[in-house]
């Protein structure tokens, strides 16, 4: 799959998460994004330094601002299972708006063409770091990092684009 780009429609896919009652749920991306303005951002790994200390907190801290600019959903995806995503989400007790979704088998990440082979690091297939602004399923902004950096995919950059 070629990497998703501005102007493309995002594919549908199913991601998993644990709800407040600790029940495993699966959700279709389209059901979350159709007719709405959503930010979809991804990290290579839960509990990894940059992801945990910069990328995610950036979106958590800016969530209110993003919402005030019309963003309906802020979705964080990682190729981790939902148990791990749940444990990771718990380390952000102040989080109000960011939803942590598990793409455990990397199927959605691959559908976006944004997978990253980190087998040499013992991480298997993961997601590239990216942030997409999607309006009614159409990609308006696609900020994909080339490697493991953290430059264009931050909340600040997306905020400027809104």
């Amino acid at each position, binding site marked *: 799959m070629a990497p998703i780009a501005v102007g493309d429609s995002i594919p549908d896919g199913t991601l998993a998460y644990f709800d407040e009652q600790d029940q495993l749920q699966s959700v279709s991306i389209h059901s979350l994004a159709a007719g709405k303005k959503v930010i979809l951002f991804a990290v290579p790994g839960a509990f990894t330094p940059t992801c945990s200390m910069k990328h995610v907190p950036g979106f958590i801290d800016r969530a209110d601002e993003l919402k005030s600019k019309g963003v309906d959903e802020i979705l964080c995806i990682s190729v981790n299972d939902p*148990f791990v995503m749940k444990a990771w989400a718990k380390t952000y007790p102040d989080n109000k708006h960011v939803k942590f979704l598990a793409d455990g088998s990397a199927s959605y990440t691959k559908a976006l063409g944004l997978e990253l082979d980190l087998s040499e690091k013992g991480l*298997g297939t993961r997601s590239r770091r990216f942030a997409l602004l999607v309006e009614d399923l159409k990609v308006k902004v696609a900020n994909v990092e080339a490697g493991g950096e953290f430059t264009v995919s931050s909340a600040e950059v997306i905020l400027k684009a809104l």
Partner: protein
Amino acid sequence: MAMAAAATSASFALAKLLSSPKIKQPISLLAPHKKTNSIFSSSASFTPFPLKFHHSKPLNFSTTGAPKISATISSGDKLPDATLSYFDSSDELKTVSVSELTTNKKAILFAVPGAFTPTCSQKHLPGFVEKAGELKAKGMDTIACISVNDAFVMKAWKKDLNIGDEVLLLSDGNGDFTKAIGCELDLSDKPIGLGVRSRRYAMYVEDGVVKILNLEEGGAFNVSSAEDMLKAL
């Protein structure tokens, strides 16, 4: 006798694979580093970008050659070598080989399907932490928990359960060791997205040779607890 049977079936499996016409893409369960099922045949494979972790020199996990197709390990077998990883007490990413863990030592190795999953977190691992003292009193040099999770997740899990040095939490990130001993559990088709993991097991290994193996079906928790190991030692 069991060893001969295991060796025979291993060589059968290997022979079968070698005789099949196109071995370029082995069946997805045993394909290296892939956690997905085979319907995702998209071949886009990015060359690994140099990902900079804070702590480490680039670690190389790649095994040479094709993945080993293995019959399930049994008592009496010598453990294959493999590299496992973990974060040490100064937060440095380290690797340790199975042979370092087991050569000339008495070791308990147990595996869980997933860090942060209920049975693993609430029963299996805590059981070993609790019994670590008793196991060490019986002469165990090492008690290690292995999971097909990355080292970051294992570190977070260790912290979450407040585990110190009693039990090592080791990452079999690409599942290489798990596959080498034929203990993989393919959970790829489950909607939950767990990919290929390890079956639950506990084994007592003496100088690299499996002496006692308690292997569960899938993620069941019947024979692989710390108590079971203590009784068997």
